[in-house]
Every structure is written in structure tokens, then in C-alpha cells.
């Protein structure tokens, strides 16, 4: 292909507008690059690894969140089918005559009754949801009927049950179910069928039977758990509402599901932010490795320029090469992310279970949007990280051929260049954080910049600290330390970017760790105030969560119990959405354990017991912008009733907020079957184990009781707390790992370049031990300095997370608690990871013979 040149005069010079190199020359250029990579694949593999880990973090978080939510939706779909609304009663159930009346009315044909309860299966010892359906009407809601066409085959079988998988429990085998002190053997009659008529392997957690058998087993003859409706319009729901008695509630399922999913949004955003942080750190690594790959081939690039390749052609080829690297990294990142999500899914679903709603562990899914997102983010990250070095590579001059080193002279220039970037990022981040309104995503963007800014200033700071330390080190630390410090300064063009990545990772890790520690400290403090009782009792009997009047009366007669408080918690849907309502029948001394935030210092005991008053938690107040004195309208058995907010208190038990009523108010306005939790204050000297036994032996006590001491419950709460942050820890360490890889990479690159210098130093009498120590000292000092710089950044991040992100995410404030050990640990991690990163380059130097190094020269 001939070279086409069009020239135009511009500012006294001729511009070549079009230039094309022949295909064969392009192919040769590609061949040169590929052979070069094959000859020395290490840097290439590290660049691919950088992209891989960055993408894996995003994919892992995305798949995990998606799979957990999908499981939630699947469970909802299986349970609710095509239902748009549900009618529910109180915990005791719904009179089935209501269903009969609705069917007789004739205006709502698409309706089906459901009896549902959690039962225990003897064969596997697990809790399952037993779903009792009416096969004759259920197809209207769950189109192909949960039991499929084979339903008719089971007619005649006593106590039939359908299971998700007949490979585990074959047809004809028996399952023993426990509920409320009763047990019953069921015969496996078939599989639960999904909409496609295929065996639904994902229907884990659900057992299905005819409603008649379910009612009999659950002792709910004449009662339903709910009635499902498929309504076509809003008008239908209004008509239905009029038809229903006041004691039952009509729930819009779409609204409820959306509200439930919204609850997890902040949690998922926080996880996603950590994923993106890993990608950000990986981008530094990509930048660093791209710079190295180009520096390593500087001579080659100069030769190509001398022969006649233009800088555009070289930059284009380097871009193509980087795209191939990105593609490989993205593909592997998706695979690794999938593996990572297998590790995280359990942790995330456990956290969702603890914090939000029940969801089974389910199966992993790789959604198309995750693949698209990872491809876009992977390419974007690589392009941003690689653009500057590739652009500079295109401008490698032919004169480079006569020069040995080019980059080292740029060390100070680099650090100076990064300084305005650092200040700009920091300022912009602070502004965004201040003016981001309530948007969590924008706040996170601001936070990223806020952390990135000081990290970008790391090379400048390291340069100047080393400049200051250099003269001091010579006298006190000896030749090795002095040379190491001089080297750090002069090789910042190589190590500076890795130091930024390390500082960024360590500061983020420290910030998150301090925030989690502050949170834990606040929760611990809150528990100390809030949980004043000695024993806490709950019934674990399936179907019998409530304490009967007779049990309460018996407890009152037990010697050694000073006072007993009772409480229960229900979920309600008001005009403010879906939230929990806590009702408490407690003594004044227990009430004083509430940490009242507003009005400060107020004694609200009397007002709490007055009619139509309510306490709300801080997170509820922040989420719904409610203050003391405001009214909240709640759906009650007496219709919508306004409750006055008399106080706001600190609570960490529910991130989506909590309304708290006195038992009097609760009893008057909400249908209830009694309390579900008892808390007891004991007389001094009472032995806890004896008291536990005494309560368990009470005649009216539920068959299965969980009795925990204050210490046990406190430990359990803090264990749960720690579990909810395990997934955060994985991502935090992943980020540090990426940064550490970057440091190894930079130091290896540096040693490759310094092989001839090392050989010369060996030749003049430096021992291998001295050189190895120097390399390791260089790494350690860089890591130590990066760690020191990370301290103020980590503290700032911690404060931002506590004051801004947590308030927006969860609506609660917390005490700032700075544990000096965590700060020291961060510096230690930074120093140790950098030191570890220095070992391999030192070993490499150790193995390289002097002659090989001198030959390179």
C-alpha cells in the first residue's frame, strides 16, 4: 500500500495529515512486540494480573450482590408467584371465611389462599418453609401451579409433600416435620415445579403441600397465613380494600419488594465502593507496569523511530498491545471474580440475613450487565492508566539510542508534577463531599478523590523526607541505609507510582478499619447502656414464638428474679415504607438504658406510657427527616392513627430504623399474640446457670427456649457484628495485595534496570549481602514512608466515613474511636508488604553473576 501524504502549511511547518504504513510493516511491528513480550513475559503477566484483580473485585462484588438479591427475588417469586397484592392478618392468622367471602363476591377471580410456616425437617435438621396451597385456585397466581400436572397423581396419598429435588428425597420416601411441638411424617409425592415445568433446583428452602394438610399439621384449621391476589389496576386494590375487614391489611407486594431491596442499597453501594477502590489501586499498577514495559523497550522504540515508524504508529501499536492485555485481564478477572464471589456469597447473604431480611444462600449467577460492566470498567481503567505512558512512548526520540538512562532524571519532575494533581484531587474531593446532598454515589466519588489526592502527593513527600533523611542516615545508619535513601530519591520515577498505590491501599484500609472499630466501639458502648438485664429469653419453637400469659405468670413467681421486661418486634408498612415496630413492656430502670439523643437529657418515661406516643431511632429520624414533635401515621387495627414522636434514641439494631411503642399503646392499636422476648434482672448472688435451668423447667415454658446471659448475648451480637464486616475485610486485603504486587513489580523492574550498576558495585567490592540489604532497605523505607503518609489520610477517611457516608448509608452516628494499635498496624502492614516485595528482587540480584550484569552494559 503506497504511503499517501497530504501536506498543508501550518505555522511555518508542513503537517502530514495522512500517513499509512503497509499492512506487512504493521504485522512486523506486532511481531516485534509479541516476540519481545515472549522473551520476557514477567512484566506482561503482571500487567494482565493488575487488570485481572481490579476486574475480579468488581465482578466478585457484583455477582455476590446480584446473586443474593436474585435469591431473594426467586424466593419471593416462588412464594408469591404472579401475585401483586397480599392480604394478611396478625401472627395468629387470617380467617378463611374472608377468602370465601372474596370468592363469593366474584370480582377477584385471580386469588389463592396460602398457609405458610417455618418448619424443621428431621432428616436434615434444617429449617424449611412449608407452603400449603390450594391446587384448584393456585394456578391463577402461580401460572403453571407449584405442583405441576402430577398433582393429581398424589390424590389418595395421606400427608403428601413436594420437595425441590427428588434425588435427595426420592418419591415415596418419608420426611418428618416438626412445628410447634408437633411432628408429622409426610410422604414425598413429587418435585416443586417452576414456571417452565422443569424441576426447580433453586427452590431450596420450600416444601409444598395441599393447604388442607398444611392447616392440619400447623394446627391452623380454618386459618390462612395470607391470601395472594393478582390485581390488574389500582382501582381493584381500592375496591378490595373496601371489601376487607379493618383487622386485616392489604399489602402492595411490588412496593414491599422494592422497599426491601432498597434497604440493602447502602450495603451494596459500600461493597461496590470497595470493589472500585481495588480497581483504582490496580490502575496505578497498570500505569506502573505500562511505564516499565515502555522504559524496558525504550531502545527498541528508538530504533523503530530511527527506521521510520512514526510516533502515531508506535503509540497505536502500544495501544493495541494494551488492549489485548486488557482483554486477557478482563476475561481472567471475570473468572477470578466468579471464584471470589463463591467465597463472598455466604458472607454477604449472612449479612443480609442479619441486617435486612431472610434470604437463602442460593446459587451464583453471572449476569450480562456484570460482564458488560467489567468489560467497560476494565478497558476504561486500562485506557486511563495506560494513556499517558503510551503517549510519552510515542515521543521517544532517536537520540535515546545514545543515552543510557532517561527516566531517573525525571524523578523529581514526576513528584512535582503529581503535587498539583494531589492538591486538586483533595480540594475537589472535599468540595464534592460537602455539596453532594444525600447522594451516596456522589459522596463516594468525592471520598475517592479526597483519598487519592494525598496519595498522589506521596512521591513528593517521600522525595523531600529522603532529602532530609539522607545526610542524617549516613552518619547513624551506615552505608546501606544511606545508599538506600539516595536510591529511593533517584528512582522515584520507578517506585513513586507504586508508593502511591501502596499509600492509597493502606490509607483506605486504615480508614475502613478505624471506622469499623469506631462502629464496634459505639455498638459495644450502646449494648452496655441498652442491655441492662442479666438474662434474655426467646422461644425457638417453630410456630410458637410467643410467651403465653401462663408463662409470664409463672416467671413472676420465680425467686431471684428482680424484674422482667417483655418485648416483641413486628414489621409494618406505613406511609413511610416498610419498617420494624418494637413494643416494650419494661421497667423504668430498663427504660433508662435508652440513650436519648433528642430532646437531650429528657426523662421520657411518663410520656412513653401515654397514649399515641412513639420513640424513634436516630436512623429512622435521619432517613425520614423526622424530628421530635412530629406525627407519624401508622396503620393500626383502628385504622390509621397518628402517633407523636416524643424522642429520638440511639440504636444500632436496625439500620432502616425502628419505631418503639409502650406495650399499652401496642396492645391497644396492633393485633398481637404476646411478647417474643423476655429480659430479666436478677437479684444479686443468683447463679445464672441455676436460673436458666429454673426458667427452662417452668411448666408453661415453650418446649424450646434459648436463654442467654448478658455476656453471652453481648458476645453473640459482637460476633454477628464482626461477621457482617468479614466481606469488607476480604476486599480490604485484596486492595493491599494489589498494592503489594505493584511494589514487587516496581522493584523488580528497577533491579532489571540496575543490573549493570549492581554488577559494577559488586566489582568494586560491595558484597551481595550489602546489595541485598540495600534493596530490601529501599523497599522497607518506601513502605514505611508510604505507611506514615497513609496515617493522616486514613484518619481523614475514617472521619468522612463516620460523619458523611455512614449517616447517609445507615442514618446513624457513632463515636470516633482511634485505636493506636490499628494505626501502628497500618504502618506495619505497609512496611512489611513493601519489605516482602523487596525480597524477590534481592534474590534476583543475588543470583545474577557479575559478568552478566557487566555484559548488559
Amino acid at each position, binding site marked *: 500500500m503506497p*504511503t499517501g501524504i497530504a501536506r498543508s502549511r501550518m505555522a511555518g511547518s508542513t503537517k502530514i495529515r495522512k500517513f499509512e504504513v503497509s499492512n506487512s510493516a504493521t504485522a512486523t511491528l506486532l511481531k516485534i512486540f509479541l516476540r519481545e513480550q515472549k522473551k520476557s513475559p514477567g512484566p506482561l503477566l503482571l500487567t494482565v494480573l493488575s487488570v485481572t484483580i481490579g476486574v475480579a473485585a468488581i465482578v466478585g462484588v457484583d455477582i455476590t450482590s446480584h446473586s443474593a438479591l436474585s435469591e431473594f427475588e426467586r424466593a419471593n417469586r416462588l412464594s408469591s408467584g404472579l401475585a401483586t397484592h397480599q392480604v394478611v392478618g396478625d401472627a395468629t392468622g387470617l380467617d378463611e371465611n374472608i377468602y370465601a367471602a372474596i370468592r363469593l363476591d366474584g370480582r377477584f377471580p385471580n386469588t389463592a389462599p396460602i398457609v405458610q410456616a417455618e418448619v424443621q425437617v428431621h432428616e436434615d435438621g434444617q429449617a424449611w418453609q412449608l407452603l400449603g396451597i390450594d391446587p384448584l385456585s393456585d394456578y391463577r397466581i402461580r401460572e403453571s401451579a407449584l405442583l405441576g400436572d402430577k398433582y393429581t397423581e398424589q390424590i389418595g396419598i395421606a400427608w403428601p409433600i413436594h420437595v425441590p429435588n427428588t434425588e435427595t428425597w426420592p418419591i415415596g420416601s418419608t420426611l418428618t416435620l416438626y412445628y410447634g411441638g408437633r411432628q408429622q411424617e409426610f410422604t414425598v409425592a413429587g418435585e416443586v415445579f417452576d414456571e417452565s415445568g422443569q424441576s426447580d433446583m433453586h427452590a431450596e428452602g420450600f416444601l409444598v403441600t395441599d393447604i388442607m394438610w398444611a392447616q392440619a399439621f400447623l394446627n391452623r384449621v380454618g386459618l390462612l397465613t395470607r391470601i395472594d391476589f393478582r390485581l390488574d389496576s389500582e382501582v381493584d386494590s381500592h375496591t378490595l380494600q373496601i371489601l376487607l375487614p379493618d383487622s386485616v391489611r392489604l399489602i402492595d407486594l411490588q412496593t414491599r419488594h422494592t422497599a426491601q431491596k432498597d434497604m440493602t442499597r447502602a450495603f451494596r453501594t459500600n461493597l461496590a465502593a470497595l470493589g472500585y477502590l481495588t480497581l483504582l489501586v490496580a490502575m496505578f499498577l497498570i500505569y506502573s507496569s505500562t511505564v516499565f514495559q515502555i522504559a524496558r523497550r525504550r531502545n527498541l522504540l528508538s530504533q523503530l523511530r530511527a527506521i521510520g515508524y512514526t510516533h502515531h504508529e508506535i503509540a497505536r501499536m502500544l495501544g493495541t498491545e494494551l488492549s489485548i492485555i486488557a482483554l486477557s485481564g478482563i476475561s481472567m478477572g471475570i473468572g477470578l471474580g466468579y471464584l471470589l464471589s463463591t467465597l463472598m456469597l455466604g458472607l454477604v447473604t449472612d449479612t443480609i440475613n442479619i441486617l435486612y431480611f431472610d434470604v437463602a444462600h442460593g446459587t451464583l449467577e453471572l449476569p450480562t450487565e456484570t460482564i458488560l460492566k467489567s468489560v467497560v470498567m476494565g478497558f476504561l481503567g486500562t485506557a486511563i492508566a495506560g494513556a499517558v505512558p503510551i503517549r510519552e512512548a510515542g515521543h521517544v526520540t532517536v537520540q535515546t*539510542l545514545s543515552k543510557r538512562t532517561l527516566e531517573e532524571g525525571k524523578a523529581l519532575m514526576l513528584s512535582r508534577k503529581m503535587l498539583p494533581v494531589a492538591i486538586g484531587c483533595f480540594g475537589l474531593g472535599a468540595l464534592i463531599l460537602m455539596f453532594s446532598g444525600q447522594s451516596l454515589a456522589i459522596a463516594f466519588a468525592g471520598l475517592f478523590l479526597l483519598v487519592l489526592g494525598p496519595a498522589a502527593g506521596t512521591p513528593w513527600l517521600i522525595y523531600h523526607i529522603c532529602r532530609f533523611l539522607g545526610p542524617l542516615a549516613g552518619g547513624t545508619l551506615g552505608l546501606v541505609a544511606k545508599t538506600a535513601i539516595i536510591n529511593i530519591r533517584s528512582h522515584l520515577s520507578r517506585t513513586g507510582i507504586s508508593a502511591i498505590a501502596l499509600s492509597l491501599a493502606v490509607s483506605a484500609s486504615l480508614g475502613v478499619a478505624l471506622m469499623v472499630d469506631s462502629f464496634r466501639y459505639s455498638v459495644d458502648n450502646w449494648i452496655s447502656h441498652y442491655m441492662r438485664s442479666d438474662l434474655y429469653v426467646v422461644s425457638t419453637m417453630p410456630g410458637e414464638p410467643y410467651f403465653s400469659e401462663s408463662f409470664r405468670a409463672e416467671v413472676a413467681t420465680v425467686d431471684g428474679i428482680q424484674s422482667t421486661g417483655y418485648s416483641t418486634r413486628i414489621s409494618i408498612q406505613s406511609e413511610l415504607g416498610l419498617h420494624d415496630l418494637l413494643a416494650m413492656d419494661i421497667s423504668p430502670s430498663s427504660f433508662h438504658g435508652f440513650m436519648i439523643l433528642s430532646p437531650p437529657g429528657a426523662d421520657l418515661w411518663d410520656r412513653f406510657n401515654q397514649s399515641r406516643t412513639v420513640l424513634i431511632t436516630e436512623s429512622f429520624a435521619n432517613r425520614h427527616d423526622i424530628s421530635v414533635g412530629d406525627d407519624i401515621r401508622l396503620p393500626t387495627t383502628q385504622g390509621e392513627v397518628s402517633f407523636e414522636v416524643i424522642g429520638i434514641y440511639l440504636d444500632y439494631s436496625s439500620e432502616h430504623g425502628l419505631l418503639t411503642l409502650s406495650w399499652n399503646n401496642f396492645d391497644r392499636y396492633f393485633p398481637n399474640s404476646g411478647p417474643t422476648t423476655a429480659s430479666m434482672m436478677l437479684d444479686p448472688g443468683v447463679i445464672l446457670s441455676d436460673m436458666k435451668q429454673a426458667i427452662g423447667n417452668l411448666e408453661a415454658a415453650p418446649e424450646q427456649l434459648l436463654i442467654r446471659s448478658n455476656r453471652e448475648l453481648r458476645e453473640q451480637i459482637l460476633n454477628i457484628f464482626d461477621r457482617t464486616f468479614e466481606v469488607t475485610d476480604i476486599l480490604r486485603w485484596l486492595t493491599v495485595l494489589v498494592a503489594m504486587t505493584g511494589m514487587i513489580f516496581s522493584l523488580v523492574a528497577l533491579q532489571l534496570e540496575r543490573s549493570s550498576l549492581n554488577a559494577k558495585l559488586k566489582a568494586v567490592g560491595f558484597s551481595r549481602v550489602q546489595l541485598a540489604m540495600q534493596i530490601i532497605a529501599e523497599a522497607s523505607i518506601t513502605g514505611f514512608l508510604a505507611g506514615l503518609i497513609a496515617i493522616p489520610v486514613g484518619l481523614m477517611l475514617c472521619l468522612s466515613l463516620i460523619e458523611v457516608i455512614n449517616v447517609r448509608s445507615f442514618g446513624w452516628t457513632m463515636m470516633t474511636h482511634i485505636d493506636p494499635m490499628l494505626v501502628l498496624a497500618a504502618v506495619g502492614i505497609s512496611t512489611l508488604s513493601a519489605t516482602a516485595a523487596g525480597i524477590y528482587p534481592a534474590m534476583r540480584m543475588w543470583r545474577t553473576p557479575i559478568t552478566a550484569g557487566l555484559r548488559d552494559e
Partner: protein
Amino acid sequence: MAGISRVFDDANTPRTVLDNVDFTANSGDLVAITGPSGSGKSTFLHMLGGIDIPDRGRIVINGTDLTSLDETGRTLFRRKHIGLVFQFFNLIPTLNVIENLRLPLELCSLKSDDSVILPLLERFGLEHQAYSYPDLLSGGEQQRVAVIRAAIHKPSLILADEPTGNLDDCQGHVVLDLIRQVSSDGSCVIMATHSQSASEYANRHCTIKNGRLHEDS
């Protein structure tokens, strides 16, 4: 080349390397440029190769004013009209001899198959190394390949910077013989050298001293 001046900034002190230099050469010329270290020999070659641009003056090669071209323009011009030979051979290490020689032909979209290259290698006694990689060649062989690569696409001008600086006398003479043959094929060769024996191969001799170029008669 007319009125060429080039001043470098050394630690904020201007240093004039070339001062109002005029120079003309024709095809078939083999010009030796000599002078002490740092006198500006390499800078002179860089100017002619479009690698560097003068602060003042014009450089016209085959009717094209290099000083009026931008970086890309100069590269494209160099690709077609100029061949470069360096002291350290600078063959592409990941390409074998034939592939190294093919590169300039491909860049100029010229016929580049073995039938073009092998006869050249035979002519200069390198056919046995056709498929060898540069690191398996001796210094002299590498430099001969580098000279052939610089000349293979028949550029008007070949610039050689200390082509024998890294070779022993015997190998140096073989390379210089080759350079003379290339020159006699019609290319103008300008060679910067320290070596008296190398300069004896040239048919024109110039010296750069104190920034000025003097042609020895």
C-alpha cells in the same frame, strides 16, 4: 544545509554546537566528518536525519526542506530517503537478519520477499546468517547487517555515526568496504568518525571544530 545553528542549554548555560554551518553533498559522495568528542558530529548527523531540528537555517534534501516539516513529516521523509547506521548496531533483537532487512522495505511498501534480500546477503557474504538472530552474530556481522538495512531501500542519504567505533580493525575494514560499495551504488554516505583509517575510505573530508565545519581539500 545552509546557515545551520544549534545551541544546547547545559545547566542554564547556552553551548553552541553548530554555528552557521553550510554543507552540500551529492549522490555518490562518501563524506567523513571528524572532530574531537563533543564537537557536534552526532548533532550534525541528527540534523541531516531529521532527528533533531536546527535553531536556525535550512536543510534541504532532494528538494524537501526538512526544517519545514513537523515530527511526523520528518519521520516519513526519513523512512523513505534516509538510512541510519549507529555505533551499537541497533538491530531489532527479536527479528532475525532477513526480518531486520525486510523492515525498511515493508515500511516503504517495496517488494520485500526473500528474492530481494537473499542476493544481497550473498553479495556481502552473510547468507549463512540469514535466519540468525542478532545476538548470535559477531559485532562485525551485526554492523554489516545494519549497513545493508540502512541501504536496502535505496535511500538518497545514509548517515553513519561511528560505524566502526565498536569493532576491531579487521571487522572495521570489512564494514567500511561495505559502506564504500553502498556509496558507489549511488547513495550519499555521511559518516562521523574518530578513526583516521575510517576517514581514509571517504572521498570528502570535513572537520567540525568550535561549531564550524571545515572541508579539507
